[in-house]
């Protein structure tokens, strides 16, 4: 029987896209994971997205900050989505 976690197993040693709580996205190579979704990611790019509203113009200013990390342990409880990398602009 294939359960959802088995689908993640298919992505081991492949690059993945991980959406996290707090408007964060991670793109990296999935080295390991467990039932809590704790993950070990290598060659990671973290994208932090912030949205500010300009008081005068009321326009939304969306900012993205990217940082690179060589080897990262991610705690499972912050993970919201796991998928193969998105094709467009991955």
């Amino acid at each position, binding site marked *: 029987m294939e359960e959802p976690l088995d689908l993640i197993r298919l992505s081991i040693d492949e690059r993945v896209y991980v959406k996290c709580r707090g408007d964060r996205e991670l793109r990296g190579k999935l080295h390991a994971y467990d039932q809590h979704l704790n993950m070990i990611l290598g060659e990671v790019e973290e994208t932090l997205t912030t949205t500010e509203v300009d008081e005068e113009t009321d326009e939304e200013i969306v900012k993205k900050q990217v940082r690179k990390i060589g*080897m990262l*342990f991610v705690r499972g409880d*912050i993970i919201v989505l796991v998928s193969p990398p998105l094709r467009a602009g991955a």
Partner: protein
Amino acid sequence: MSTAGVPLKLLFEAENMKVTVEMKNGEIFRGMLVGAEETMNMNMSDVLKTARNGQVSKLPNVYLRGSSIRFVVLPELLKNAPIFQTVTTMKRKMEQAAQQRQQGSKRKRE
């Protein structure tokens, strides 16, 4: 053997190495990982703490609650850790099993 999953085992491998821990509240702790537990509670020494406002402070000893941790930056040399042997073997076995299943169904058709 502990009930720890593979990622946690790698965290244990990082003991006595310099790590950077980012907490859920945005505080950052960089220092030597003295010990980690299955709950992910971590004991660190010679820590440089960066608060959310950017203020930096030195703490000789720190104990962090696992549930408050967002992630841990590990030393890159851990990618050579023996743990990964099991992961690659598991994946290979999975792929072999899938191939065998495919071959098996082809034979039935013939």
